[in-house]
């Protein structure tokens, strides 16, 4: 094993591999920063150029690019509240308020360091858990996924900004929007109004671009100045502060990383869920949850650590069973087959050094991303000070071209516009956009797994499957906790309590 660890690293220390990694990382950072495009696009475009190179170099290029896209997404979320995908959403909650308070540099540095630590912790645990992973994956099935998705729903209470009714309404709307399109369970086109375009449903990144980016630009236009006015708010933070923040909250980082690795391992659970779960976890375990949403640095560190670790976890099903956990892993699988490596449990015996090469790539690519990130974040932090008259036209342009580029459908531009207006209205009248997205992300996961569980295990599957029952109880307990805590806090605040508490 130690030998494999060493030879895995040695394979990466060729000039070719190092150069490929650097190219991959820079390329991935750029793609990640563009809205709507993610790791899959980055890898797909690089794939044709990888045939014929040595395995370690090829993987360095592909994995390096993939990992770099993750942090690129965080950057725009923190600076402009523009998440390029559902993954970046959770960075908007606290990263953007930090930017507004003149702490953009700190937020960016904390996010980069969080992603690095997450990536490294994820990689280490990935290496350690290789022998355990098969039984874990085999133990969980659709009914357990369903419980996890239900647990995800409990975050709704977190983002309800004062009115739980409006928060729930927003989530319900989000779920219904996710149902637009061909229902794969029953082959029924739902809510498509006969449109061929709507058969494929509303694309996530496009909806996010609309709900957040377009709506934020409309708001910025109305405000008429820059996001951050340096005359009023000085940039007070430094890179060093952000780095320190991440290390100071080391226990949070470890927890978030393990959560991310775990979610990455499960083939049916996406990375978009990971970011939200990490945020909720950070908030529920925090001593002062009321600071969240107003610029708490923990709210930046936790999602980034989770997402950093998530990518490592995504490798597991590919390695353990030879089946890709997601679209990006499907591409990696293609690269493997192109290299003459048959992915699967065999890899853990025959190609262990290649497996460790990948673990090393994750570590090194993360280090590279973070170094580049820390170097450029003071410059990036100046972007929000640009005047609205420059920001509005350029960001809107990038967003709509990005919306088009996600699938190459011109209709998506219109969808982004509709969601932009929707996002603006929801924001103005306090129907939480975050809850809307949570509903959208979890809707299909809940519906599909519910149907599968019912068909496979019958109507009483919750009680016939012990693991499901345990998770179900866990969901109920953790749902009740915030309300109990909320009530206590409300009591402490005595005077204002009034009607809102009664709703719960």
């Amino acid at each position, binding site marked *: 094993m130690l030998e494999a660890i060493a030879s895995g690293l040695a394979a990466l220390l060729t000039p070719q591999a190092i150069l490929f990694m650097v190219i991959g990382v820079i390329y991935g950072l750029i793609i990640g920063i*563009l809205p709507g495009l993610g790791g899959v696009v980055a890898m797909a475009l690089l794939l044709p150029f990888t045939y014929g190179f040595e395995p370690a170099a090829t993987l360095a290029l592909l994995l390096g690019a993939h990992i770099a896209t993750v942090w690129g997404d965080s950057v725009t979320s923190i600076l402009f509240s523009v998440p390029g995908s559902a993954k970046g959403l959770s960075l908007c909650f606290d990263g953007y308020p930090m930017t507004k308070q003149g702490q953009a540099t700190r937020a960016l540095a904390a996010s980069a360091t969080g992603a690095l630590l997450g990536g490294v912790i994820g990689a280490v645990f990935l290496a350690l858990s290789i022998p355990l992973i098969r039984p874990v994956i085999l133990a969980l099935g659709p009914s357990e996924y369903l419980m996890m998705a239900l647990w995800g729903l409990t975050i709704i209470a977190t983002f309800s900004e004062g009115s739980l009714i409006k928060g729930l309404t927003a989530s319900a709307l989000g779920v219904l929007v996710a149902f637009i399109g061909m229902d794969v*369970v029953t082959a029924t086109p739902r809510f498509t109004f006969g449109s061929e375009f709507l058969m494929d449903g509303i694309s996530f990144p496009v909806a996010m671009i609309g709900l957040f980016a377009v709506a934020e630009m409309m708001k910025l236009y109305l405000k008429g100045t820059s996001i951050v006015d340096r005359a009023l708010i000085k940039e007070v933070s430094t890179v060093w502060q952000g780095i320190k923040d991440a290390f100071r909250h080391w226990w949070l980082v470890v927890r978030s990383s393990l959560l991310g690795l775990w979610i990455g391992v499960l083939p049916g659970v996406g990375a978009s869920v990971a970011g939200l779960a990490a945020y909720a976890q950070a908030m529920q375990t925090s001593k002062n949850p009321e600071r969240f949403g107003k610029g708490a640095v923990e709210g930046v560190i936790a999602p980034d650590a989770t997402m950093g670790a998530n990518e490592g976890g995504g490798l597991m099903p590919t390695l353990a069973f030879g089946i890709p956990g997601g679209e990006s892993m499907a591409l990696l699988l293609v690269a493997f087959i192109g290299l003459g490596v048959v992915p699967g449990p065999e890899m853990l015996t025959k190609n262990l050094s290649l497996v460790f090469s990948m673990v090393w790539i994750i570590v090194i690519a993360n280090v590279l991303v973070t170094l580049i990130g820390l170097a450029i974040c003071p410059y990036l932090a100046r972007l929000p000070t640009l005047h609205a008259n420059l920001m509005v036209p*350029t960001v809107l*342009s990038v967003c709509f*071209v990005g919306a088009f580029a996600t699938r190459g459908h*011109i209709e998506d531009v219109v969808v982004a*516009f509709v969601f932009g207006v929707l996002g603006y209205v929801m924001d103005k009248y306090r129907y939480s956009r975050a809850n809307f997205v949570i509903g959208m992300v979890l809707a299909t996961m809940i519906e599909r797994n*519910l149907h599968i569980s019912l068909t496979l295990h019958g109507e009483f599957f919750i009680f016939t499957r012990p693991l499901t029952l345990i998770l179900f109880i866990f969901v109920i307990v953790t749902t009740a906790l915030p309300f109990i805590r909320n009530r206590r806090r409300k009591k402490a605040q005595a005077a204002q309590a009034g009607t809102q508490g009664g709703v719960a």
Partner: protein
Amino acid sequence: MSRRTQENLIALAILCVFIGVIVMSLGYGPRARMIPLPLATFGIILIVIQIIWQNLRSTEELQVNLLDVLTQQAEKEGAAAQGGEDGPKRTSSWRKEAVALGIVAALVGLILLVGPIPAVFVFTGAYFLLSRHYSWLKGLVYTIAFTAAIYLLFVVALEVQLYHGVLEPLVERFR
């Protein structure tokens, strides 16, 4: 329009969406409507409660100043403080909102008409020109540089096949 009326309109719109969902769901098979139907019913209950609740409260509690929404400061400020500054400010904010919507719609319209890259050029250029934030020369330079960057990133580096706009067939006919 008072804040309460606005809130009521939004709530009614949402109510209509939920009712629409129920009507459409009734046409689907039992499995396809298993989640949408109860969910929409739940949504109707929620929004009806919301409508009743927001009409029972005093007007002051509903006042949300636009600027506070922008800076997300509203929770901190007491609602009563803004009671006075209703009239003139709100009408002008309505107009500004319409302009903001118009700007976004203009860009979308341009993209549909002439395709993304020319639309970006025209939109950015026009915006710089009309906002008079930059001198026309500086604005033009920025516009060209920005459009070129978009082109390089999306079309050259990412191989995005661009849409050419509904005007293209017309242009082709005259060629």
